[in-house]
């Protein structure tokens, strides 16, 4: 009965999911040097694990088929072999070294001192919004979950999230960043710990009250990149998305100029016009 009900619900969902965003199986390669490092390491370790898994599980499955009592085999009596044990201590160590070398290189690349930043953005997390301040530009604004997602996500709203574009991953004011420029983030928080994560950038970094954390990025191509708060921060933790709009340096300059103008005119800041 229960199974039937689930199958029914599953079928109904699958039919209605036609318009839904496509699911993904794997980590995004992203659009920064750091995201390529993370993705490359991820794939390397994954394949090493797959190979080890095939060998170990293969040996187990072979043994389970060949060495069963029902086949009338006599159990062997051996209980140790120093040679075997040395081999399967040494080989994993070698494999680990093979993993540790690129991991160390990647980590050093990500944490090494960078060139002078072209742009510094201060990111402040608070329950449950992000504030962005472009430190040398006198531009700053608060970025919150978009109105439509916010309406639909209320408990028992009765509305179908499938009809909201980028449900829960859309904001009123995206963070606008120039591509090809070295951007430095300073991350902190006002109340509890948050974590700022856009998968396409390749990292997440905690925003901690009383601390200023540092992180860097250089986005390779224009586009919209979405992410979410990744550290449990209270009731609406699931509803503080991050959207980056990466644009060309010229478009970025134009956007900054406009922000300053509207700030002087006392107007609310406007997100950059959609180019695509």
């Amino acid at each position, binding site marked *: 009965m229960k199974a039937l009900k689930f199958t029914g619900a599953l079928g109904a969902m699958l039919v209605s999911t036609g318009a839904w965003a496509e699911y993904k199986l794997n980590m995004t390669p992203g659009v920064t040097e750091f995201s390529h490092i993370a993705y490359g390491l991820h794939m390397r370790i994954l394949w090493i694990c797959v190979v080890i898994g095939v060998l170990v599980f293969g040996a187990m499955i072979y043994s389970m088929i060949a060495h069963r009592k029902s086949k009338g085999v006599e159990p062997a009596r051996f209980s140790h072999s120093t040679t075997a*044990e040395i081999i399967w201590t040494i080989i994993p160590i070698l494999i680990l070294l093979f993993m540790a070398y690129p991991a160390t290189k990647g980590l050093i690349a990500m944490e090494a001192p960078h060139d002078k930043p072209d742009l510094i953005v201060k990111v402040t997390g608070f329950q449950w919004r992000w504030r962005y301040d472009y430190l040398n530009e006198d531009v700053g604004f608060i970025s919150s979950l978009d109105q439509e997602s916010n309406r639909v996500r209320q408990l028992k709203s009765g509305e179908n999230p499938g009809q909201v574009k980028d449900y829960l991953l859309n904001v009123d004011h995206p963070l606008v960043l120039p591509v090809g420029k070295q951007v430095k983030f300073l991350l902190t928080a006002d109340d509890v710990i948050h974590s700022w994560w856009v998968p396409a950038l390749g990292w997440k970094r905690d925003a901690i009250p009383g601390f200023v954390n540092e992180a860097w990025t250089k986005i390779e191509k224009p586009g919209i990149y979405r992410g979410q708060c990744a550290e449990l*921060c209270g009731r609406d933790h699931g509803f503080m998305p991050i959207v980056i709009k990466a644009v060309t340096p010229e478009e970025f300059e134009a956007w900054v100029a406009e922000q300053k103008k509207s700030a002087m005119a006392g107007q609310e800041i406007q997100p950059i016009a959609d180019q695509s």
Partner: protein
Amino acid sequence: MSSVAHAEGHDHKPEGFLNRWLFTTNHKDIGTLYLVFSLTMFIIGGAMAMVIRAELFMPGMQLVDPAFFNQMTTMHALIMVFGAVMPAFVGLANWMIPMMIGAPDMALPRMNNWSFWILPFAFTMLLSTLFMDGGAPAAGWTLYPPLVLQGGNSFAFAIFAVHLLGISSIMGAINIIATILNLRAPGMNLLNMPLFVWTWLITAFLLIAVMPVLAGGVTMLLTDKFFGTSFFNAAGGGDPVMYQHIFWFFGHPEVYIMILPAFGVVSEILPTFSRKPLFGYTSMVYASASIAFLSFIVWSHHMFTVGMPLGGELFFMYATMVIAVPTGVKIFNWVATMWKGAMTFETPMLFAIGFVIMFTIGGFSGLMLAIAPADFQYHDTYFVVAHFHYVLVTGAVFAIMAGVYYWLPKWTGHMYDERLGKIHFWWSTIAVNVLFFPQHFLGLAGMPRRIPDYSLQFAEFNMISSIGGFAFGLAQIFFVYIVWKTVKGGQPAEARAWEGAKGLEWTVPSPAPHHTFETPPEIKPDMIAHPSNAH
């Protein structure tokens, strides 16, 4: 020492329900209490998991408020870790360790009673916070400040409950160490002990080392919340990250507290049903000890994203990777134990093999998580959720179930229904993989953990995962039925319930009489569980 406690008689159980269970000092009865308690908590914590999976069944908020959802994830974890998995292993230890080493009882029987009877009160208190103003803790089982300090005054009850659990665990650990080191029968040298006894000895030392650290951490939370201190409050000069260091200095060894006894159980079962000695007994012991040591120097891999210096990240990455070496030794030894044996696949063996395969999958994702630059992506996503459920559910819980099926004939005197046991195994194994495997994909695709609602690209796998979750939950109700049926009756079990079983526990009748080994047994070579190391 225990002569007073046992003054009422030697071969018959105490009269009356209260005398038998409330005032008991008998290791078998206390073991039963622990196991029944653990099963109860497993069902309660499982019910909370069902709430979580039901809310995550579809995008949109259908069932519970996000604040209550956070209480569910927090309580689910606290109950499963402290109420289900740990007491289950203490229950197995109580039942089996004295019988495995030829001791008449635990070394400190009255303390044994106390360490059990603290638990129902502690968990009643913890669960009662659900009904209090402000609700249960909702900051995750890690109780990170400042978030956790935003909760209501009910938080004091939760902290007191954690203190009680710590006291109970430490007393249990002292008892196990005292028993193993003092009450072994003559001839039962340390290196003759079954591996389950060894892994528990190591686990007990871990417990004594880290439970006080947790107690200290949560006490600082208590004074920060109620007495105006600023240990973790940046505005008062404190450091919220320091709590994470304290918590994970406890938290990482805690992970091994939950898995080392599982290694022990599986190391007893695989040789029995392979009809072949355990491969590499000595290296198993050393590997367990190495894992325990390493567990103290890897804690910050839970915190790669807090902004550590490069040197710290490198150290914790390397130290974490090194754990793969002793863990690998164990897995290879288990495979070599099966190799060229004469295997049969009764339910305990199925669960043990399931453990080896699926724990290894959890180990692989653990190795991936150790790689700091990749962890910047994995951290706090469903990939982590998938990882620790593979090691905790298909790892620790599967090992507990393997142990229950393995020793149930010894406890009850009845064989369980083999057909039902096999159904339970296959049902659980299929369901648990439907439940947790897609969560790897969700995490890699970018779904953070601890969120009550999600964007549409995560819909398919969440629904599959929830279906697996409901099926797995149902399978455990079936498990309760199988155990109940076995307690009530069944084919009588022989003293040596399994053809290939070795060790002292199989030399006493089934069911084991209320008192065993009142005089120490004479250890003959064929009574030693893993005789391979005799030279």
